[in-house]
């Protein structure tokens, strides 16, 4: 294998950069520092688990169409799994956010880790919002008509019309989940690169 700094191909150079940034033992570590043995460090992976449930249940709903749950008990079951998976996803993510905020988790060159997490949270809210708009019931009509004026006043109505069901459905099942997964994937890779943030020091210790 040609060393990455001598390879003429862009794929070889990308491999070199990736291996330097995330060597295998850092990408998939088999040990963690002692301070990670705390329940507050569990909520990140709980958020990922809930996201997995949301994606799988959403894929099942997509197979039969979004109106499936209105007339089928099986569809209703998967719709409920999708809803409660989302509720748990947000609950775990907010507790994770609280823990990291009070830990000042942006310390030690972890600013991008914090920023990608915060932006993933905001994009997740937009994703859940478009989900409420695609329920195909009076609730989604009510939410759409209540939201349109505020969103149109902000100027986004030109390309984000909450009363356009087809557009909202595609934002919900394609565009926004793609961005959420991209951000969360980047967030996890940054956690691997910089390591899990240690607790705040006690007394005169410097972070």
């Amino acid at each position, binding site marked *: 294998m040609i060393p990455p700094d001598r390879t003429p191909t862009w794929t070889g150079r990308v491999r070199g950069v990736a291996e330097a940034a995330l060597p295998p033992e850092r990408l998939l570590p088999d*040990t*963690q*520092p*002692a301070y990670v*043995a*705390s*329940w*507050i460090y*569990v*909520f990140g992976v709980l958020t990922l688990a809930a996201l997995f449930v949301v994606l799988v249940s959403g894929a099942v709903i997509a197979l039969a169409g979004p109106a499936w749950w209105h007339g089928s008990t099986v569809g209703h079951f998967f719709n409920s799994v999708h809803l409660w998976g989302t509720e748990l996803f947000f*609950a775990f993510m*907010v*507790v994770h956010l*609280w*823990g990291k905020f009070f830990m000042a988790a942006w310390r030690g060159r972890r600013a991008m880790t914090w920023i990608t997490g915060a932006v993933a949270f905001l994009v997740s809210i937009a994703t859940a919002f478009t989900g409420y708009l695609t329920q195909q019931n009076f609730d989604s009509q009510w939410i759409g008509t209540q939201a349109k004026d505020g969103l149109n006043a902000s100027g986004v109505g030109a390309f984000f019309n909450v009363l356009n069901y087809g557009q909202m459905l595609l934002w919900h099942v394609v565009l926004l989940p793609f961005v959420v997964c991209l951000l969360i994937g980047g967030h996890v890779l940054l956690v691997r690169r910089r390591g899990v943030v240690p607790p705040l020091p006690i007394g005169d210790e410097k972070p």
Partner: protein
Amino acid sequence: MFGLLLSVFSLDGRPRYIHTGWFLISVANLVVVLVMLALFALAIALPFPHGGKDE
């Protein structure tokens, strides 16, 4: 027992709200927020099993 729980957490009836001045929140949302705060406090306070070994 189930009927009692249903009467407290029923999602089918009219929602109940707590409204004081500018502050307005549904009881269901307030319960969720309180549960999350309790979860946060427990996650900090409870010891982690097999924890404490420096690796």
